[in-house]
């Protein structure tokens, strides 16, 4: 994939809203980040900055709004709750269809499988299918028709079975058919396969139709890396392992490759060690490879988190208060580090309370207060904006400044 050129639109958030019950933490915030930029996001405590960050990488699901990143839509347009419900129901539907299989197998070994329970299961299945008709009404017309056919078949099967075999142990439903050995099991297997096929092989389209929520790990793979306000390292692992975990989304080795020690898997492992070491050296932790992440000094932990995010090869890096709790020397080092990251072609969106850091770094700044975007612009514009002064220092100061 070609790297986006500087100035190209990378992240675009439009009217993002996040509600927690009655509290609206983020109110219609729109924001843009272009490739190569360092963008600041500031605001008083509780302004909703971190919540907004969480919405950007799907740690929290926005209530409404649109977020696009490098051409991918990160928020489904169907409301997530409905989308998820429908998707779950359709998975359940697929699973239920799988239940047909033992029944089909039952034809092969009738004495084992054909019992009262099987009849009950069949009737329940039919009931379930009828129940499913409702949530699946958003399906494409032809698949809805299939569903109706399945339901009818289930119902007829169960009914005829009950009707024709008052003593369940003797006559089976399959005695009704002349082509007992081949046709019926074949038909049953087909019935089983069709809905599974319908769902699984149409998965992308089903997801599109139902608005499957884009997960955080998918977003990381798309190219958004982040750090956390309260450091979230894997504290009992070594610094190197932490950063190697960052490589996770860029490696492919699966269970069998690893167990059999296939050359590809081994090469990948060597590569991720090399790349992780490189990232650690980049942030200045080249000496601490083997130390336990949790026992590193605070400033180093912050840098380790950045190294871990860098290892995911992000196009956009979200930094949540990277300078919190740092002394002036450390935050000066941080400024240099963020500059170097930016020079490496990675856009940075940074939340920070330390004004010295943010005014120094950011090309543009967005200001949030009580979940609302109150100002945006270059650092000098924002510094003079009366609304910003009011939000930080109160109305009196704003009046005095004016």
């Amino acid at each position, binding site marked *: 994939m070609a790297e986006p050129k500087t100035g190209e639109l990378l992240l675009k958030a439009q009217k993002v809203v996040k509600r927690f019950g009655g509290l609206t933490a983020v109110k219609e915030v729109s924001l843009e980040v272009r490739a190569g930029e360092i963008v600041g996001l500031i605001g008083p405590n509780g302004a909703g900055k971190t919540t907004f960050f969480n919405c950007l990488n799907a740690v929290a699901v926005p209530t409404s709004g649109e977020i696009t990143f490098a051409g991918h839509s990160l928020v489904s347009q169907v409301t997530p709750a409905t989308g998820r419900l429908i998707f779950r129901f359709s998975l359940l539907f697929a699973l239920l269809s799988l239940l047909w299989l033992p029944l089909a197998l039952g034809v092969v070994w009738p004495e*084992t499988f054909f019992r009262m329970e099987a009849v009950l299961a069949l009737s329940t299945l039919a009931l379930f299918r009828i129940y499913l008709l409702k949530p699946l009404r958003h399906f494409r017309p032809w698949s809805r028709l299939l569903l109706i056919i399945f339901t009818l078949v289930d119902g007829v099967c169960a009914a005829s079975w009950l009707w024709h075999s008052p003593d369940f142990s003797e006559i089976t439903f399959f005695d009704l058919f002349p082509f007992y050995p081949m046709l019926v099991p074949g038909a049953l297997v087909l019935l089983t396969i069709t809905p599974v096929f319908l769902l699984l092989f149409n998965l992308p389209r089903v997801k599109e139709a139902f608005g499957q929520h884009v997960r955080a*790990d998918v977003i990381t793979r798309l190219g958004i890396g982040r750090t956390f306000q309260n450091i*979230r390292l894997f504290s009992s692992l070594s610094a190197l392992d932490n950063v190697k975990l960052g490589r996770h989304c860029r490696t492919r080795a699966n269970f069998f490759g690893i167990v059999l020690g296939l050359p590809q898997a081994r090469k990948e492992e060597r590569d991720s060690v090399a790349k992780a070491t490189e990232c650690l050296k980049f942030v200045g932790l080249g000496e601490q490879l083997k130390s336990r992440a949790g026992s590193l000094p605070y400033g180093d932990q912050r840098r380790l988190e950045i190294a*871990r995010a860098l290892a995911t090869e992000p196009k956009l890096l979200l930094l949540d208060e990277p300078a919190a709790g740092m002394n002036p020397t450390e935050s000066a080092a941080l400024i240099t580090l963020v500059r170097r990251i930016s020079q490496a072609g990675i856009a940075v969106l940074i939340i920070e309370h330390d004004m010295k850091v943010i005014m120094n770094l950011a090309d543009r700044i967005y200001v949030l207060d009580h979940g609302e975007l109150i100002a945006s612009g270059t650092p000098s514009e924002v510094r003079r904006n009366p609304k910003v002064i009011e939000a930080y220092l109160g109305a009196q100061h704003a009046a005095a400044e004016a």
Partner: protein
Amino acid sequence: MHLDDRLFNDKRLYLPLLAVVLILPWLPMGSAGPYVLRVATLTLVYMVLALGLNVVPGFTGLLDLGYVGFFGLGAYTAGLLTVHYQWSIWLVLPLAALNGAFWGVLRGAPTLRLSDDYFAIVTFGFSELIILVIRNELWLTRGPMGVPGIARPDIFGRVLDQPWQAFYLILFFLLLVLWVVVKIRSSRLGRAWFAVREDEIAAECVGVNVATYKIIAFALSAAIGALAGAFYARWFRFIHPDMFKFWESILILCLIVFGGMGSITGALLGALVLIPLTEVLRIVLPAELSNARYLLFGLIIVFMMRWRPAGLLPVEKE
């Protein structure tokens, strides 16, 4: 460097250990020989179980109180297939492991969002369900009558009827499982599990699909448990629902708590110390007190909590 890495990467450390185990059946032990060999085989079975259980609570940090369910599932899968079809152990064992993995996934899928105690309760309930089905579905499992007369293990059409042959067989399976677990532990898969154990949100944010990796862990763990069960059925030649009581889950959990959660060497060591200990106590204690030997387990765990809360060979070294 962690002890696991040291032990399994350094030939000078693991070759002597392996040599000791390999010559064990040939040590001159007189009349005690068969008994010692039996206990050794049982210990190896529990080592496999401990390694398998270790995958879920040790690597992904989810407490599993129902491991015996998969042990029983594997034993019954293998036992029934053998009794009905007289298949070879080399066919029955993989089938049992697959069946275990299948039910492991089925148990895991609905519990993905559960954590800590809630997950533990579900695992407990699920294993009780398996045992209840085994006990009550007479047409399939013969229920409380048990399944007697299961064929011994075999290789290339030859029946392995000597105790030492069974010992080597389970040793082979143990090494196989050990190979898998050690390889996985130090790979991207193992790291993803550790990440899930440490912090699920951070794991998601570095690109780990938490659900998938949990499911892989459940499947692997259950498959190993079922494998041990399948060997057990073929070796012991009789299975009964009472052999798979809840107590066994706790016993296996004790092994890894004793050794240190998440540590492979610890799981092996736990089985190596505690399983022979129960046998030694069976001899030492008078007959009417022999069941009291389990009290000692409680005592050991209490002392462990006091002096080595992270187990004998803790994963983390400060």
